[in-house]
């Protein structure tokens, strides 16, 4: 917030942009609570983008202002924050939020007020099917379905016949369970066990035993942050020798630190930005991903980037040109009409290259990502420096 104020003051003094009222964009992220490890990089990215955009002259010559609220990973607070942004701050559009339940909860308030929203949460249900209410809702992250495809293909390639799932006892684990089990069934892989564990659990021996009793060829662990280390360690300690897959929720340095040695060989799907420097030179979003990571690391330190911030980057990458186009058609002071025009322009997004892929929206597709560019498989390996790192093992182009 302070940064926002200082930034605006600098603008007012120096650049003369402040003569025009700033374009207000509302942001809701989960900077605290269980989803904080996802929400914090998103918030950081947006702070970075706001500053950068204004330094470079704003959008169509007008400064932007991101009003960032924390929902503490809680639906109620997200809904409350949404109403506040719409009514009190009169924002043009909303970016957010991090978690699926809260993003679903935000659909009603934004649809009622007619405000376009770009969600940063994974679940397909947030934008599909596009109906009277979801007209207003877009999203940037790959769906769990899209992320399940690489896992299943990789399993097939490795000759996996049976797989087990163990995931968080929350919306994240639940979404993955649905998506993965469906994708596996389609690919002829039998899911022999589907277990749950809590982030706060200190033992998952019971669940792991159940999985071991079914002796699957591979196990997928559906969790985020560092908690998914526990089932993986328990599996290995109990003598499991099969393949272990994780989800992109663990694509953060803390996971490698806590897991250590035993993570070597773990495979997971991730947005291409995770391994930006290993992407083939002709990979379409290599450049955007590289530049994003450099900016982020320049501000928050080497190794600090994660794929989640990329979703926020992509949201702005879509919103910014849409704003420019909308400004040509309508005055922001005419708030309701401008929001309608802005919605249409977001839906008209074509060939926007983001950190996670290329976005082509339509009236029936409010995500616009194809998994071919949006997902890669990576593996945890011991790097040349002796530290654990992510290695790109497969792309799907």
């Amino acid at each position: 917030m302070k940064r926002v104020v200082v930034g605006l003051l600098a603008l007012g003094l120096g650049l003369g942009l402040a003569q025009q009222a700033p374009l207000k964009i509302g942001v809701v992220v989960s900077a605290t609570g269980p989803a904080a490890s996802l929400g914090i990089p998103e918030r950081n990215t947006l702070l970075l983008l706001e500053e950068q955009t204004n330094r470079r002259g704003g959008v169509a010559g007008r400064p932007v202002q991101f009003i960032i609220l924390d929902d503490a990973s809680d639906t109620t607070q997200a809904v409350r924050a949404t109403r506040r942004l719409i009514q009190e701050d009169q924002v043009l559009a909303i970016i957010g939020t991090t978690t699926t339940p809260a993003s679903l909860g935000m659909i009603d308030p934004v649809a009622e007020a007619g405000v376009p929203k770009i969600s940063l949460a994974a679940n397909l249900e947030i934008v599909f099917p596009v109906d009277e209410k979801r007209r207003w809702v877009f999203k940037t992250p790959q769906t769990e379905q899209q992320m399940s495809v690489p896992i299943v293909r990789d399993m097939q390639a490795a000759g996996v016949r049976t797989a087990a799932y163990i995931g968080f006892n929350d919306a994240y684990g639940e979404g993955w369970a649905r998506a993965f089990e469906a994708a596996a069934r389609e690919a002829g892989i039998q899911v022999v066990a589907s277990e749950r564990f809590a982030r706060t659990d200190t033992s998952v021996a019971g669940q792991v035993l159940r999985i071991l009793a079914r002796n699957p060829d591979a196990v997928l662990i559906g969790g985020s942050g560092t908690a998914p280390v526990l089932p993986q360690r328990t599996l290995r300690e109990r003598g499991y020798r099969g393949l272990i897959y994780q989800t992109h929720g663990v694509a953060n340095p803390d996971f490698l630190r806590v897991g250590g040695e035993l993570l070597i060989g773990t495979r997971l799907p991730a947005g291409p930005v995770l391994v930006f420097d290993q992407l083939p030179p002709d990979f379409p979003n290599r450049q955007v991903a590289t530049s994003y990571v450099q900016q982020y690391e320049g501000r928050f330190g080497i190794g600090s980037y994660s794929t989640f911030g990329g979703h926020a980057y992509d949201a702005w990458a879509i919103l910014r040109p849409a704003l420019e186009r909308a400004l040509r058609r309508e005055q922001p002071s005419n708030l309701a009409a401008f929001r309608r025009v802005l919605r249409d322009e977001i839906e008209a997004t074509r060939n926007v290259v983001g950190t996670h892929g290329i976005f082509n929206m339509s009236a029936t597709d409010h995500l616009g990502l194809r998994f071919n560019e949006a997902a890669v498989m990576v593996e945890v390996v011991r790097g040349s420096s002796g530290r654990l790192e992510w290695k790109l093992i497969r792309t799907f182009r």
Partner: protein
Amino acid sequence: MCFSPLTLIAVLLLLVTPLFLPPSSFYLSLGNYIAFGALVALGLYLLTGLSGMTSFGQAAFMGLAGYTSALLCIGLGWNPWLTLPLGVGAAMAGAVVLGGITTRLKGHYLPLSTIAWCIALYILMGSWIELTGGHTGLRGVPPVTLFGWSLNDSKSYFYLSWVFVLLGAWAAWNLTQSRSGRAMRASKGDALAAASFGVNPAVLKLQVFVLSALYAGVAGWLYVHYQKFINPTPFSLEASIKYLIAAVAGGVGSIPGVILGSGLVTGLEEALKGILPQIFGRTGNYEIIAYGLILVLILMFAPKGLWPFLERYLPRPQPQTPKGTGLPSRPIQGGAGEVVLEVENLTKRFGGLLAVNGLSFQLRRGEILALIGPNGAGKSTCFNMITSVYAPSAGSVRFKGQPIQGRTPYEVHRLGIARTFQHPHLFPEMTVLENAALGTYARTRRGLLASMLGLSRREEEAALAEAYRALERVGLAHLAHHKADGLAIGQLRLLEIARALASGPEVLLLDEPAAGLRAGEKRQFAALIRQLVNEGMTVLLVDHDMDLVMGLVDRVVVMHYGEKLAEGTPREVQRNTRVIEAYLGEAA
């Protein structure tokens, strides 16, 4: 019924303000959240403020009602008004199970089990995916409609929620002013004294707990149909604790206090969200730290919350002196001289100690019988067995021929036996009049529900008049509206007697009623007892004061080491050599 002008102004302000705001203003949605919190907090007012229990599981009751309503509306297409009673019923049923198990136990078991219950239910709501949609939740909960008008925006919903809050507050206020409310406050302070005047504390506690679940259930229903979306997070343990913090911060002992608390916490939450990260420079769960510390500090330094600080500046209502005829008196059956209370072979062992051994005596209608004996002779134990505080190890107690040993104090009291306590068991927080009015509990009938709906006004007036008359008889009427904690010891004993009188008993049991009275007071006391007996009451008293006893009573039973030593008129007993040896000699 009349409200103070201040209350009316506050309500009017509440109802008029939204008219000046746009229909989906953020402040109106905050107002809605405050209303939901206020309803839950009103339940906590009844539970904690009135009855001295606590629950960390109110949000789970909200969830139970919310999910029931949402599932029926989405799955079967029912109207929300139809699912309101069902949802609330589900919450209440949950409370019956949980409360039925724990309210008989000591105070801390209930809150502990509500913690566990809240966690368990939260997991259930999150994991039963086929039914509840799991943590992802369910969309498409229909809005509430009223006469074909859909309450879709914050403004119309604001009125709906606040109508419920005002109704809830009104009902809670009615309850506070009723016999049940008095009984709740009494059992909170002193379960034994309450039970001795006909209150069944376990049942009452269960009722209040279920009632608090009702409030939470209504809040849950309102919440879900306002959000139009349901998932488990708003029903977590943390949410429950937030409601408790709201109630405690505002002042859990008063109705405006808990509503204030809800507003305060909801407002604070919004404010802290902006301020704390600026102070600390980075985000963390600072609100949680602030909440925790606020709760701790309030309990340490202002355990009654913030409302008492505001209340000081408000005009106090003038207490009314009760008028009216009082309650219909108990018809006295049977003639003078018949045996009303018969103790036979009564025995009590505490471990190896034989406190009372084979005691037998009879109490006849219209007489004053004294039970005397040196300290430790077993008089009070005997008293406690007659009133069923203790179950006798052997022997029987019969009241008008009916065995009553081993029952409960409240059952015994309802038969027409009233007692006083050796060490006054009064309620210092309540006024003298309210203390005395507890005595009328068993003579009045109106239940919890009738009281809440304000249907017990007339009975309540009669009860207060009755209590006031009892105070007049013992000479405490001039102190009727004072708090009982300011009374001198002699006055406390008189108040004990007044409370017993207010219950219109057939038999009055007085446990050392004259201890601590001055000479003049003793004479007054003796005159009062004589007058009561003339009116047809029967009195059994325990006392040390020989002058008083010998001058007042008709017969004396002398106890020594748990056994009966002698029985007879005062004159006979005074001449009995064994008595002189064992007791009077000792005293001389």
